[in-house]
């Protein structure tokens, strides 16, 4: 992206003046080198989102922003129903409530090392990963609806976890307002065999080691020490979420004219929040959030089973679970007044600051853990929400490294076997059903995650707490 089109507010904050049909300005949080590496489409998409009815303050892009569908990935935008605000299926994305959860293992590197190969094999064997992988759980129609209403809470009630997990999951594990009756039979059918599966693409389960503590106070509150072994799980709402996204994207594209919405691009398809279609999507999307929360909870159970066999007596406790493809109703201060807004985060993580009432008691004083996934060969980061983030981008931060290169380019540049061997030499075990998938996800195909989180930190979106490096990656 040409920075000549932007107004530099500070080293990490760049503005796009409202022009043409834009109702609000655009704001990009990143350093100049990251912005220069962004596709021009990000600029176009930030501007397009700014044209949608009822948008409040600005159309935001996080430091890892890249070209998405309608909204940029790494995009944040809030809409006010009282101002004709809209809800957009593209602003949430196909993988509704895709997110990351991180667990403490209580293991030291010395305890882990002798069993690393066996642990990798057991996790790969037990956690369904890759295209078309199926889980062991089959839900009846009634059970499916209960899962869509109850999310991780449903999963815990079914024996897939413990009460303490729910406190450390956004929405206490169950997104309110889910309406399984607005989830189509097709979407439910697509999910039938996919409960407790990772999926493919950039989804993974990783065993990681904390290699550096940036903020001792927050790390201590999160229970993180240098050398600790963690497990992070990155996945979403699987076929159900994809099908909901597909169906509502079409419904919104077809009916936009009827609602008097002029779309600069069909992929920005949206509906007024208060319209019947908007409300149906909201109910279905919330059911999709619950599906993702239940899915990560079931995978947590499978992970705990594997660890219990290899490391008897060790218990995996949940640090936190965040989603980065959502639309949530939140109260935010806008020009000194509290407003109820529908905040879309597409490839962006909510990052609540200290004192926020939605945080569990144990974290309220310090702020929300913000879990940022890296790539197989680099690092992941844990950040903490800041007080100032609310005024910057509705308490939002980045969600990952963000791709720098297409899958197409990546497969030309790397072979899966070479990637696996090279990482093995560095002590990282990769297990994946597809070597082509590994090549497409090669670490070099992504932006430098360290530069992305540094930008988030410096911009004030969230504060760096800890760096983690992979030891084992189960790649979908």
């Amino acid at each position, binding site marked *: 992206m040409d920075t000549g089109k932007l107004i530099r507010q500070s080293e990490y904050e760049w503005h796009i003046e409202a022009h043409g049909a834009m109702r609000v300005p655009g704001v990009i949080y990143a350093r100049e080198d990251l912005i220069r590496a962004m596709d021009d489409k990000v600029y176009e998409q930030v501007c397009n989102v700014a044209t949608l009815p009822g948008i409040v303050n600005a159309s935001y892009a996080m430091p890892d922003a890249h070209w998405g569908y309608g909204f940029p990935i790494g995009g944040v935008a809030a809409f006010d129903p009282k101002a004709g605000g809209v809800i957009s299926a593209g602003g949430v994305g196909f993988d509704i409530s895709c997110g990351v959860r991180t667990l403490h293992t209580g293991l030291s590197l010395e305890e882990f090392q002798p069993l690393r190969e066996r642990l990798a094999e057991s996790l790969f064997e037990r956690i369904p990963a890759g295209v078309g992988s199926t889980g062991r759980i089959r839900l009846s129609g009634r059970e499916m609806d209960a899962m869509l209403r109850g999310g991780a809470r449903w999963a815990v009630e079914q024996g897939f976890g413990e009460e303490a997990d729910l406190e450390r999951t956004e929405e206490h594990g169950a997104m309110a307002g889910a309406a399984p009756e607005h989830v189509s039979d097709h979407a439910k059918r697509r999910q039938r065999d996919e409960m407790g599966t990772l999926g493919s693409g950039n989804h993974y389960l990783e065993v990681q080691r904390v290699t550096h503590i940036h903020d001792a106070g927050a790390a201590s509150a999160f229970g993180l020490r240098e050398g600790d072994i963690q497990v992070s799980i990155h996945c979403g709402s699987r076929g159900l979420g*994809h099908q909901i996204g597909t169906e509502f994207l079409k419904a919104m594209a077809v009916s936009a004219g009827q609602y008097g919405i002029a779309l600069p691009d069909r992929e920005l398809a949206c509906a007024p929040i208060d319209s019947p279609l908007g409300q149906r999507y909201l109910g279905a999307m919330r059911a999709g959030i619950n599906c993702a929360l239940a899915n990560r909870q079931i995978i947590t159970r499978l992970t705990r089973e594997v660890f219990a066999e290899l490391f008897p007596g060790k218990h995996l406790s949940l640090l936190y679970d965040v989603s980065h493809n959502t639309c949530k109703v939140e109260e935010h201060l806008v020009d000194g007044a509290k407003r109820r807004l529908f905040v879309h985060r597409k490839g962006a993580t909510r990052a609540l600051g200290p004192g926020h009432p939605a945080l569990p008691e144990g974290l309220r004083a310090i702020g929300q853990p913000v879990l940022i996934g890296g790539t197989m060969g680099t690092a992941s980061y844990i950040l903490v929400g800041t007080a100032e983030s609310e005024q910057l981008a509705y308490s939002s931060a980045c969600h990952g490294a963000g791709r720098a290169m297409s899958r197409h380019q990546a497969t030309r540049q790397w072979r899966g076997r070479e990637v696996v061997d090279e990482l093995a030499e560095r002590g990282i075990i990769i297990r994946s059903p597809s070597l082509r998938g590994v090549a497409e996800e090669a670490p070099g195909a992504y932006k430098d995650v360290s530069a992305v989180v540094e930008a988030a930190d410096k911009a004030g979106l969230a504060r760096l707490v800890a760096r983690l490096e992979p030891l084992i990656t189960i790649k979908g």
Partner: protein
Amino acid sequence: MEEAKTARTPPYWEHYPHQADMGVRGVGHSPAEAFEQAALAMMAVISDPTAIRPDAAVSIRCSAPDLELLLVDWLNALVYEMATRGMLFSRFRVTLGDGQLQGTARGEQVAAERHERAVEVKGATYTDLHVIERDDGTWVAQCVVDV
């Protein structure tokens, strides 16, 4: 219904880059042929179509107000059939007319030992979505698929 014409020069498919995902493009002598090729392009995102035996047929019907939405519906219908039947497809037949698509996808059940599957397609998107006739009379059907 308009039958896909027999190709004078072979129809073809290709991928094109998108930063996070993959663009699929089918080119043929009619919209129907371009749709068939776009389906092959999408299959090749997931797995090698030449390794998929066209043993079993699945019928697909879609309707949409225009050709572009119909292309996305067609590709998404294939995504759904693959996901729920555990199948991969390698041959496609499409007839188009009056906002309707009738299609047949031929393929087989996934066999892990023969079919390496790189990535699943979550859905076809409206990004870079075009169904157009080029100056030389050939048709292009393309969009980005979310993986």
